[in-house]
């Protein structure tokens, strides 16, 4: 009984201490990093007693909220351009990475057996390649038995950072895609059926024979979908692995990019996975609530330092160390305390 009392008392003290000293950090934005942000927030609260409240309202919403100064930080899958950051007095940096993989449902084909390049993928999504035994696909996959069936193209119906990065890659890989469709969170799809969310695309692919789609790597892995390899900028076929994703991030020229405006698709390097994507944090340089903004920086520093394992468990890719060092310098130089 005494023991129980002590626990209750300790709990009360801890609770009141938290309430008295901790400024809860608020953030809003992208849905893609929500699972890892909330896992980090949980662990951080246990360690320090400081809470973090993150609302996944979508990248566009995150940008709007930070511009309106209603949150301590905003999160977006698509980075803002340097001029825009300057105009709004914002600092931006990449927080964690994910990767996008093409997935297929073809009888007898196992994960990683097939390979695509950007040009072929763009042609499929443009509706120029309609059959699986098309010469372009055959040429890339001489050892795979391809049926003479129509390709069912699946893509996202909701606006999403995943679509932004996927279409950005296609635009870099194919001039035809760039002129006809372009890039964006929601684009004018020439063909295909639209499914809602990564889970919708995963569901569609596993249901529909002879289909192709694109999802976050985590969804492909957790739903045991047949992902494919891709030919990267260096002309080498690569498989979607954490090393390949990190290679893309390391090879990106972060230091020379103002405001870390780097889109991680089609990066150089022999090992780089071509559709890697970072998700970004946005904060005011001169925040009205300096205490909260310092708390947020502390949280992000902690996440970079001790959050890597948690990220990998959820199939996210932590930022490489070199990039983290750069980001720490940016914080010191630009965010006023």
């Amino acid at each position, binding site marked *: 009984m005494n023991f129980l009392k002590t626990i209750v008392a300790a709990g009360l003290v801890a609770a009141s201490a938290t309430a008295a000293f901790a400024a809860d950090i608020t953030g809003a934005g992208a849905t893609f990093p929500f699972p890892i942000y909330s896992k980090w927030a949980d662990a951080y609260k246990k360690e320090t007693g400081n809470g973090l409240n993150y609302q996944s309202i979508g990248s566009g919403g995150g940008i709007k909220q930070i511009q309106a100064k209603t949150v301590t930080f905003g999160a977006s899958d698509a980075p803002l351009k340097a001029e825009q950051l300057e105009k709004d007095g914002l600092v931006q940096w990449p927080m964690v990475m994910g990767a996008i993989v093409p997935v297929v449902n073809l009888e007898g084909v196992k994960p990683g057996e097939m390979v695509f390049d950007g040009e072929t993928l763009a042609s499929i999504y443009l509706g120029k390649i309609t059959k699986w035994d098309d010469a372009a696909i055959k040429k890339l996959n001489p050892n795979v038995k391809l049926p003479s069936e129509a390709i069912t193209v699946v893509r996202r119906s909701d606006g999403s950072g995943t679509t932004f990065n996927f279409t950005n890659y296609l635009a870099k890989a194919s001039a035809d895609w760039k002129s006809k469709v372009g890039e964006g*969170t929601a684009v*004018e*799809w020439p063909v*295909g059926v639209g499914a809602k969310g990564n889970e919708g695309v995963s*569901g569609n692919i596993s249901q529909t024979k002879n289909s192709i789609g694109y999802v976050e790597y985590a969804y492909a892995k957790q739903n045991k979908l047949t992902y494919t390899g891709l030919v990267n900028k260096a002309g080498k076929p690569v498989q979607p692995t954490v090393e390949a994703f990190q290679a893309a991030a390391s090879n990106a020229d972060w230091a020379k990019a103002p405001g870390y405006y780097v889109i991680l698709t089609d990066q150089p390097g022999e090992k780089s996975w071509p559709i890697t994507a970072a998700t970004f944090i946005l904060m005011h340089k001169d925040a009205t609530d300096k205490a909260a903004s310092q708390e947020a920086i502390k949280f992000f520093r902690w996440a970079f330092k001790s959050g890597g394992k948690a990220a990998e468990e959820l199939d996210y890719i932590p930022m490489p160390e070199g990039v983290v060092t750069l980001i720490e310098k940016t914080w010191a130089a630009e965010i006023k305390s």
Partner: protein
Amino acid sequence: MAVQSDVIDDAGPYDRAKALSAFKLGDVTFYWITRLSAISVLLILGGIIVSLIVGAFPAMKEYGFSFLWTQRWAPSADPPVLGALGPMYGTLVTSFIAMLIAIPVGLGIAIFLTELCPQWLRRPIGMAIELLAGIPSIIYGMWGFFVLGPFLANTFQPFMIRIFDGVPVLGAIFAGPPSYLSTFNAALILAIMVLPFITSISVDVFKTVPPVLKEAAYGVGCTTWEVVRSVVIPYTRVGIIGGVMLALGRALGETMAVTFIIGNSFRISSSIFAPGTTISAAIASEFAESDGLHQSGLILLGLLLFVLTFFVLAAARLMLMRLDKKAGK
């Protein structure tokens, strides 16, 4: 007893006036409360229209009336090209097919339940209909996705294509590669979803037909079919159309289930087995990550749906009035 009558006598005219004024106060309060409730509907509706117009204004200014007949929907183009033709077409086609299926089936169920059904079967069928109305729309969406979709794509569509191959219009309607997600799948799900509206309202109004009327008709030797056609349906026409309109309103605006299974393609296809989209599905899909002109365009779509629903309901009223005139009322 005496004491009591004394009290009543004492109360006399003075308390009577007081009591009457208390009644009057109650009446006036009641009148104003109900009146305010009724007016609040107009205020809320007005507020919704105003906020839709304000939100849609940038898109209205940019696209004007061409918004109505542009098929292209390219929010990422620079500047964005937005047109409502695809979603409007999808909304009307899915609702039309849904009503085409749901009206005869719903009325059939209602007639069977009130006129023909043995007593012991009434409760189970009635409860099944109510249950159908209570299922959340996302469940319908999932069922359409996992069960109806594969059936349509693998069995029904190949069958229809074989039957109508080469027939001028019908051939094109059923053509195309099999797809789980299609306009027709969404329309079928909508038909099931609106069925309870038509059925339960029809059952209710059929019950209002005075038994004397039916008995008289039977008395002069009418068959059940004749009674239904010449007595029950004419007597309850207004109620039936009310139920149909309620169902149509739901079909026009249904979002979640449709987004799940329609395939969300802004292109208009001649085939009903091709993916399409509806106004509400388009808004639900793209609103969260939209901004600027794109968001304004989506709000304009919402305003269009509002106007579309208004016109459909107005047309129904008009039709009803003309029917009444014909009937000589």
